[in-house]
């Protein structure tokens, strides 16, 4: 990690950082990964992310929801790579203030975030742990996909954010869950899940399209601290998944330090996990070479969503299976 963060700034990085108002080290990293294509990423980040919603198919036929919304003047278009996602092209009133929203018929969720739960592939009857669950997009999606018949253990440390999570669970009318306020690293040892989702707290570098402050809000030292928290969470959760079970590690970021480097560290510290290819969802392979670092080739099976290539927010998603001991 320290080697990865020892980044020497090029003149090009400084120039682009000044032009697009980023911290220069961020742009240097984009250049390391993407070369001249980094400019396309910087340009894509200037385009606001479109408003997108996920239809709650547990409560309503999604075609009916579309009809109801369009009758009110909204224009919706299905997102091709999601099962229940829609882009909201036109909204006569804020999409978070409709009667359909209050009825729990949809959740406002970014498109990349919607794909994370697909990688988890939750099944009815399973015990599923969502280790950093607020505000609830993926938690409600897990219950939706399992028709409210898995057991979701949703953990959130923040008092403020857990209120929003509970509100969304109520609004969308789910009941097969336990909501715990606390640190998922300190869960009782006898909790063993079939699947775990860790959408880790991150720098938020992936959501610059929604929050421009993210261009300058995290220093290299912050990134180091965030990496440590992410690794600490992932490694402690590794003991909470059953043999044969799955952990999906995700972070809303394009930073290798928060993605491949976290996964590589887990793979180096334990021999009972392997990275799985989680299917034909959009995304580029994980990055194997980063500066002078050569990472385990397995990380190529992780997925990266790039704003300029996939039209989403930036995301890192990796599916790990606990296998041999």
């Amino acid at each position, binding site marked *: 990690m320290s080697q990865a963060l020892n980044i020497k700034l090029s003149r090009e990085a400084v120039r682009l950082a000044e032009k697009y108002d980023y911290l220069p080290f961020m742009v240097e990293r984009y250049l390391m990964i993407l070369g001249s294509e980094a400019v396309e990423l910087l340009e894509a980040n200037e385009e606001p992310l479109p408003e997108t919603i996920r239809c709650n198919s547990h409560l309503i036929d999604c075609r009916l929801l579309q009809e109801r919304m369009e009758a009110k003047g909204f224009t919706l278009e299905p997102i091709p790579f999601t099962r229940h996602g829609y882009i909201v092209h036109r909204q006569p009133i804020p999409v978070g*203030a409709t*009667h359909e929203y209050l*009825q729990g018929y949809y959740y406002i969720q970014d498109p990349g975030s919607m794909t994370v739960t697909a990688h988890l592939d939750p099944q009815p009857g399973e015990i599923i742990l969502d280790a950093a669950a607020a505000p609830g997009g993926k938690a409600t999606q897990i219950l939706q996909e399992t028709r409210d018949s898995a057991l979701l253990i949703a953990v959130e440390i923040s008092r403020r954010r857990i209120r929003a999570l509970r509100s969304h669970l109520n609004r969308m009318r789910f009941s*097969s869950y336990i909501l*715990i306020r606390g640190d998922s690293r300190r869960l009782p040892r006898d909790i063993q899940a079939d699947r775990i989702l860790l959408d880790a707290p991150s720098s938020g570098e992936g959501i610059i399209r929604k929050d421009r402050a993210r261009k300058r809000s995290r220093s290299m030292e912050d990134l180091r601290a965030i990496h440590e928290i992410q690794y600490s969470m992932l490694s402690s959760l590794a003991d909470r998944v059953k043999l044969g079970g799955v952990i999906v590690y995700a972070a809303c970021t394009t930073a290798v330090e928060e993605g491949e480097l976290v996964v590589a560290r887990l793979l180096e510290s334990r021999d009972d996990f392997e990275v799985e290819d989680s299917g034909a969802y959009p995304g580029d392979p994980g990055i194997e070479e980063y500066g002078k670092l050569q990472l385990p080739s397995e990380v190529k099976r992780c997925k990266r969503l790039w704003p300029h290539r996939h039209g989403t927010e930036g995301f890192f998603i990796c599916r790990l299976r606990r296998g041999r001991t």
Partner: protein
Amino acid sequence: MQAKERPHLRKLRRDEYRILHLFAASQGLELESIAHNPMALEVGGARYHDVFDVPIHVARVLGRVGWLYSAGLYLGTIDRSGFIPSLPLAHRLSRLCSHLIPCVRVTWEGEKFFLYGRRVLEENIEVWSPGLRIVVNPLGEAIGWGLGAERGGSRMIEPIKDLGWYLRRGG
């Protein structure tokens, strides 16, 4: 110093069961129609208890977790005044509105008033019933709980809890 008790779910006490039975009866229902496994959230020092209907497969795991925040379907809150039903409970019961239990149905205009937490007057009421009732829109979708009242020979619905709460609470 006394150790702080962890929030946990417990079976209802007899007096709490009685309160829930009374509420169910007021809606023309047996308690079993409202909840299969009602449990109360015990938080040290609280003067009220949130009540949840906890599915059995969820209840089995409860003993293993700490700092519980909620679980199962939120039914409502028991305090000194009695039972205050929740919005999820309104949804659960609203499917019985058309024929089994007395509910109140408002017009689309009435729905707008109600969701802003405002009183609905007679011209915007399609079906009225006195007392604490589920309020539904013309499609039969629950939009909250209201109190069917009569004043000066005119019928109205006073909002008790409406779906707009999800916006007003900001979450």
